[in-house]
């Protein structure tokens, strides 16, 4: 496994995590996208070291799987898996963007809102800390 690629995977996951923890929806979406790139790259790495180019080898001779023994070929399965995962991530990123746009239309802001429970707790704290005469 190439060290450079392994480091790239680590950086992608780190950046993705950082972006996911932001309050702005667009950054969250970028975080998801970057992180799924990391996962797909990891899937590529799982196939082992790089092999010969598919149809034509390094020496220029035409190759057919099976004929040349197939020893120098890269494992194709993780590439198929990554392709599937990329398509799914692509579809979902566009769905997320549509939702973020809808949220912006409804709220005029790009921030993640507090959930119901958070708001309830915030309200009760305000009530408790308000000065006596204001109640």
């Amino acid at each position, binding site marked *: *496994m190439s060290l450079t690629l392994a480091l790239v995977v680590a950086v992608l*996951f780190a950046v*993705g995590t950082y972006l*996911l923890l932001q309050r702005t*929806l667009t950054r*969250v979406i970028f975080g*998801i996208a970057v*992180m*799924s790139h*990391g*996962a*797909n790259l*990891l*899937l590529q*790495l*799982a*196939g*082992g070291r790089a092999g010969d180019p598919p149809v034509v080898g390094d020496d220029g001779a035409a190759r057919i799987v099976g004929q040349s023994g197939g020893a120098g070929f890269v494992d194709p*399965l*993780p590439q198929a*898996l990554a392709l*599937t*995962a990329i398509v*799914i*991530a692509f*579809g*979902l990123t566009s*769905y*997320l963007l549509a*939702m*973020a746009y*809808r*949220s912006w239309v*409804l*709220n005029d802001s790009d921030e*993640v*809102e507090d*959930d*119901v*429970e958070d708001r309830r707790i915030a309200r009760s704290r305000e009530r408790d800390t308000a000065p006596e005469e204001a109640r």
Partner: protein
Amino acid sequence: MDLILVLPIALPLAAAALTLLVRGSRWAQRAISLVTCTTILVLAIFILLAADAQGAVVTQVGGWSAPFGITLIADRFGAIMLLISTIMILIVLIYALGQLDDEREFLLHFHPVYLVLSAGVSASFLTGDLFNLFVAFEVMLIASYVLITLGAGKGQIRSGMTYVVINLLASTMFVAAVALIYAATGTVNMAQLALRIAELPEGLRLALGYLLLVVFGVKAGIFPLFFWLPDSYPTAPAPITALFAGLLTKVGVYTLIRTQTLMFPHDGAPSIVILVIAGLTMLVGVLGAIAQNDIKRILSFHIVSQIGYMIFGLGLFTLAGLAAAVYYIVHHIVVKTSLFLIGGLVETATGTGALRRLGGVARRAPVLGLLFLTAAFSLAGLPPFSGFVAKLALVQEGLNLRHGGIVAVSLVVSLLTLFSMTKIWGGAFWGPPEQSGDRVRDDHGVVKLRLNPLMLGSTIALVGLSVVISVAAAPLYQLSERAARTLVEREPYIEAVLGPAEAEVVQQ
């Protein structure tokens, strides 16, 4: 080549395409959905009968033999889950026909999405391939993203965003887990993984096992990964919340049990980590439920605490523990879905789910009171209802293995469950009748609630089913035991996929 395993996945997908083609005709859409859901229910019955007779039914898709092709497999556990999920899908569909307004049902394409969801659920239960499990999960989740934001109201977008992001995060981790597992073993076929993961060094095996535990833990909603659940479920329309509550988290539990028993067996020793998680999940879930003041939110927190019981059964890693878990899942899916459907009926008829504004529902609609009592008692585990049988089995096995702590927690949680159910009962069903909703007075001047016959009929059918589960407890429990035996032995599963030669390794 056994085509019967392909149909529960292929049929709903084809029907989804068909409903889009006939989107002008409302009756055609409804007819296609109903016929498809009924057909896969019948298929699921046949699959269960075949799986119970043979131990497991296998199809190698495209005729490619096991480790190279894609394997579909229904062992007893998978077939039970498939049957119970198809029953839920049919009943909730009928309920939805009565509840959803025209805009949500037709303009926003409820039918195609619903059918895709059912295809995804079936595929999750039938797949024998780790990466295909990811794809099945995604098919199911994408459909659920659309359903949970159906109508795109303000609250739905807010909670839907949390739901989508947290599930995407879990899915990304799932892809990473698949990549690491493939790098370590060179396969994604679950039966082959069962053989190869056993050869890995201890530390790596633990790391992979816990990574999958986290991934499926997010989907199942176990402690401390459940925070998205009680917030996002209640905002969707009632039938959708009911289906999500009954099915989706249980798909997570199913995969958790499947992967942990097949790929990371504990050789009969209980897993302390899983038991501790189970105890905390039960306790935190039920305490959350007690603090809530809205029917749907109380019920949503209960999903979390109930998941704890199933994980408890898994954590014991014995035949009896897993049998109890299987029975518990079946009981829970039926009871939880029916409670949400009843909550939906109350909400639709009165216009609110807030306990403060409700009252006297038991007088205004006695049948709802009866249905709620049956389901609530069953959830809390009062004899003679189905929850009692499930909890009794868990507690017995827990005591046999001398895990008194978790047994004590589970009993306390049962009491608290009953307490929070009386909260709904006292707030919504008793008290002076609120004069909201449709005004049709009876002889005593009480305003009767008008209930939609489709919604009421399907709810009654579901509560009836939960009674059947408790009446037929003996044969059902024996079936769960047989299912648990295949889970513990592992050999029938591996033999069915890879052939007898490979399976002998496990036997030795």
